[in-house]
């Protein structure tokens, strides 16, 4: 990386998302881990029912950005933020907003499949149960597993441990688990980096299937993956949002030199 980037860099936007289309919008968002500033003035909108990919080299802040959206960063005691994350007209960092409520509406899937060491059924039912869901749990579990394209594989062994599944199945179980709480937005933090190519393909198909009902934001290291699954792509570098726009646009005609260098594999 020969080029340094000004911290007050103005993000290059191609076909910016209209405000009424946005499910979530970050405005001048800054984040510090103690004295280290991990995000610099990030302003970014995620359109409803579309897949947005966050790409960038390791340590560029894309996972931090993702975790800021459902306030998972609150769990790190040293984190400070400024600026806002807007969701349905509410600033999620407003003091009156409870992070627990945020996370119930904005689900998350992690890098490494992390099913609870419980049965498949209990894994999916965990979210609804802690919310005090009173409806038909069996139906909800089935619906969630079907949405995650896992039902046919596990319908006869719902009582078996979630850990007995293969890595790809575990990750789809985690997606089903996230969908069972009926969120609007699903955040995915490199969901396929621990999986083999076949399992990765299933997850990517799944992402394409669920985007009709969910706004998906996915962090990925894999640029081909970003190209395959996302509608829009945002490129970050050293905590700065360098460029964002439709995925085709970013990949075929990047405006910023850094974006081009990253996409063509010069660094990262």
């Amino acid at each position: 990386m020969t080029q340094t980037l000004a911290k007050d860099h103005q993000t290059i936007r191609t076909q910016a998302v209209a405000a009424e289309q946005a499910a979530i919008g970050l405005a001048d968002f800054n984040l510090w881990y103690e004295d280290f500033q991990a995000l610099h003035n990030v302003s970014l909108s995620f359109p409803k029912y579309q897949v947005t990919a966050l790409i960038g080299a390791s340590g560029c802040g894309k996972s931090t950005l993702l975790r800021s959206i459902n306030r998972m960063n609150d769990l790190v005691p040293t984190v400070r933020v400024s600026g806002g994350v807007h969701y349905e007209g509410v600033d999620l960092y407003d003091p009156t907003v409870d992070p627990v409520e945020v996370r119930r509406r904005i689900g998350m899937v992690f890098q490494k499949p992390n099913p609870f060491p419980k049965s498949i059924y209990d894994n999916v039912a965990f979210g609804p149960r802690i919310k005090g869901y009173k409806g038909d749990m069996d139906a909800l579990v089935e619906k969630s597993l079907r949405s995650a394209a896992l039902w046919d594989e596990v319908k006869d062994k719902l009582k078996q441990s979630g850990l007995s599944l293969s890595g790809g199945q575990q990750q789809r179980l985690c997606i089903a688990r996230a969908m069972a709480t009926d969120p609007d937005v699903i955040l995915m933090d490199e969901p396929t980096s621990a999986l083999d190519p076949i399992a990765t393909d299933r997850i990517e198909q799944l992402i394409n299937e669920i985007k009709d009902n969910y706004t998906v934001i996915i962090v990925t290291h894999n640029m081909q993956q970003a190209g395959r699954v996302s509608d829009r792509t945002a490129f970050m570098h050293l905590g700065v949002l360098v460029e964002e726009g439709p995925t085709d646009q970013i990949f075929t005609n990047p405006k910023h030199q850094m974006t081009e260098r990253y996409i063509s594999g010069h660094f990262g």
Partner: protein
Amino acid sequence: MSVSRPGKSSSIAQTPAGSITSPQAQARIRRRQQVNRLFAFLTFTPVFLALSLLTVLFFDVLTDSVSWQIVEPRNSGQSFALSQAFGSRAVIRLELLAQGKTSEEIEAFFADAEALRKFKARNRVELMWYTADGPFRWIVSNSRDKRISDIGLFEGWGQRQELLASLKEGQSLYLNPWFDFSFFTKNASRTPIMAGLSSAFFGTLWVIGLVILISLPLGVGGALYLEEYAPDNRWTRLLEVNLRNLAGVPSIVYGILGLSVFVRLLNIGPTVLAAAATLSLLILPVIVMASREAIRAVPTSLRLASYGLGATKWQTVSKVVLPNAVSGIVTGVILAVARAIGETAPLLLVGAAAFVPYSPNSPLSKYTVLPIQIYSWVSENDAEFKHVASAGIIVLLIVLLVLYGFAFVIRRRFRRNW
């Protein structure tokens, strides 16, 4: 054997390494293997020592809990009267008569002042008579039988023929298992054959039950606070250091604390409750540390998954962290409780009685516990109590073994593959 390769200078080809089968190399390999063998042997030595000492312990305790006894059904009975008036010549005469001595022998016995002195009172109901031909003979009065003599397992086996030959009319030789079912139903007694550990066994159950009730919620709660809630600051770290130190404080110190706080200040007295509170203090640091390790071993990814699904802190702790830490916590608690079961010193201070002929029936009862009962048996003069103590040690070891087995099963049952 060294082969110089083209393009390499001969000095390299003749370096000491040479061929890997050269004599120098082989000597080097031998030396290395010797060192390896030496280290392997050294690491095995402590294991071997521990195993052999353990074998000796078990062997010793098991063989001590069985002895040969010559028993006479209680019909001569006169010896029982000795309990009231030992030392009186008339009684000794009666006893000697009962043993079938002729009147000449008895007169000869009384004529010899030396022989008379060999009658020794052991306690109010026993007399011991040294004789020239046997080691000694016991005259023990007892509710059922008269025990003539008591001989160790191997010694008795060696002398079996002579012992059988020496049996008098109505006497019989048999192997007395001191550790039998009645051992659990009998209470403390001054007579070895009457002594059992019922009261000590139930005393231990009472004390340990209360210890678990007190220390489990306190210990797990403390561990949860330190791991999940406490801020990471100077005070927390000070607390952690002190916790470690507390686990190493000698148990007698906890005894002094229990005596001054529970027995005197809170005026609970020398009761089961005071003992349980003292032992709980003793094992709390161990439980807190074991529970913290177990809680810390729950992967962060599971916590994040729970938070990510919108769980509150308490929901995460109670539904994800605790269920996954339970095997570690229970194992730690059981090991700590096993330590509490074996503790003697602090209980001596807070007033466990050496002689309690009844089982406790409330937390405010007087009590004794297994190790203290064993201790008091070992310190008895009467050699027969050695067998009783061995039987008591067997019970204590079985109780501990059951607990360790329980911990093992729980660890297996709840083992997780993350």
